């Protein structure tokens, strides 16, 4: 008995030490991950004098917090226009992407037609096509449509990035709905859109939320397409606007730049804070299931 007791005591002590070590190393990693956003926040709240002085510890605010960078950003720069454009582009891109993927996923998960298997695989393959491979021909296509320097060009091209993944995970969610449900609905006389809107969409809501977040993030964060297609301040979106317009001062306005970058990045971050679990389950569903 005594031997058993000490054995378990050791296990407990080991476990406590291991837990301590786990927290210690995790803290080191998290410092690495949170350091840039933290420093951006600190910089955006410092006065210009404090930013440009090399004296003192740079990671704390010593000369008082100022909101002047944010105020200036919202009143004296085209930042509000960028924000409005990003909201418009993201809203319509998400709407278009979700409409296309839900309809297609519904058909591919439940019905068979000539070539449907090939199409499902093809959709997955298009997910692997990166934007850097297609931006040059798309530049010509957008130019041919007369949409260069129009934010609506982005509503056209962003779905190409979102739809393949959204369709792919929606197929998974729809396919996991028991067939008995639609059989019952058909017996009750439901047609295809009643089945879609009253059974499939409500039941697969977690999947739809995950897909929507994905489409939102893709549209909000994309940098290459607006950089290639847009150039005037009235049409620019947040990513490119912040990087190109706010940098082009005579002097580097680091405070304003960091304030802009943080404000522009905050909507996706806030969204994830609330809906992270949906997104992660959607992301890992395809890879982990079974």
């Amino acid at each position: 008995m005594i031997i058993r007791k000490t054995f378990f005591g050791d296990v407990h002590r080991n476990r406590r030490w291991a837990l301590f070590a786990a927290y210690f190393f995790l803290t080191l990693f998290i410092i690495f991950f949170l350091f840039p956003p933290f420093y951006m926040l600190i910089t955006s709240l410092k006065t210009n004098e404090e930013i440009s002085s090399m004296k003192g510890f740079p990671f704390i605010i010593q000369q008082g917090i100022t909101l002047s960078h944010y105020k200036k950003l919202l009143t004296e720069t085209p930042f509000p226009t960028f924000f409005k454009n990003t909201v418009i582009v993201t809203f319509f891109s998400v709407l278009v992407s979700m409409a296309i993927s839900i309809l297609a996923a519904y058909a591919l998960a439940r019905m068979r037609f000539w070539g449907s298997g090939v199409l499902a695989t093809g959709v997955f393959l298009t997910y692997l096509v990166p934007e850097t491979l297609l931006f040059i021909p798309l530049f010509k296509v957008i130019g041919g449509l007369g949409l260069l320097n129009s934010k609506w060009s982005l509503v056209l091209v962003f779905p190409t990035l979102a739809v393949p993944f959204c369709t792919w995970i929606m197929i998974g969610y729809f396919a996991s709905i028991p067939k008995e449900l639609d059989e019952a609905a058909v017996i009750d006389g439901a047609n295809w859109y009643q089945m879609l809107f009253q059974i499939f969409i409500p039941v697969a809501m977690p999947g739809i939320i995950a897909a929507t977040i994905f489409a939102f993030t893709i549209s909000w964060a994309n940098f290459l397409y607006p950089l290639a297609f847009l150039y005037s301040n009235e049409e620019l979106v947040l990513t490119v606007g912040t990087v190109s317009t706010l940098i082009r001062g005579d002097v580097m306005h680091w405070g304003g730049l960091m304030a802009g970058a943080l404000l522009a990045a905050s909507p996706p971050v806030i969204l994830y804070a609330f809906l992270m679990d949906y997104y992660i389950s959607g992301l890992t569903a395809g890879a982990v299931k079974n």
Partner: protein
Amino acid sequence: MNEQAVQGQTARLGSEPKTVDDSSRFKMLFRRKSTLAFLLCVPLLILVFGLIVYPFFYSIFLSLLNKKETRFVGLANYLFLFKRDTFWMVVRQSVLFTFTAVFFKALIGFIMAHLIDYLPENRQRLWRGLALIAWVMPPALSTLGWWWLFEPSYSAINWILDGLFGITIPWLSETFWARFSVITVNIWFGTSFFLIMYLAGLKSVPQDLYEAADIDGANAWQKLIHITLPMMRNIIAITTLFSTIVTFANFDIVRVLTGGGPTNTTHLFGTYSFLKGIQGGDIPLGACVSLFMFPILAVLAFFILRNVRQRVREI
């Protein structure tokens, strides 16, 4: 999963006793079903063919034209690139960037997933959430923060190094350090993707395997080698392959941090193609540069697809 064949479904349903009215409604619905299914996929087909497949072939066509796009020049653009040292440097840098970044992302992600998995269940969400912030911020914007950290005259990192060791490093103006910087930022941005995937993978390993190993007296290392890694082989493979594609095709980080400099030494295919095609106005040459990514992407896609198919068969 049970079979999806519509015919099977109708046959099974048809055999059940029900009124004549119901079964004829059924047959009508299912007879039209394949037409309907095709119609529901039409928007997807338009998108995929109009804005992915057609541009791809258009890109090949463009790459065969001269700079003004007036004359067909065959493979002249490709041959021109082959003779350029800068192009070969882009190739080497893309490979170096991809392998180094993916290796460290996979390694750090794996270690962090294990550490978080070791914590009590109710603490895991918080730590995972903190680690994810880097991945959630749009990379073009978070790279601005890194740029500020690396900034030559006010660099906060140099401030620390100067205080501790009395040295400063020209982060973005010397080839070695510029390459180091873009890779570091990519690792910073992409590790969380591995972390999420591995964490989900770890949760899917049956606990009784570890309990059995405990009874056999296995140590932590043996459990890792003989249980965790084999059980997670599939997820490690697919996450690594997928991340390799995304890293290889990276654009935002290099574009914002170094713009390809100093003297083109940090360019990847994406940024070099942008420089030549959009900024330089030589659309055919830009298309040509980006098309060089295709063979490598195709090989990676082949392995991913094989992996996904295997899993579908296992279901």
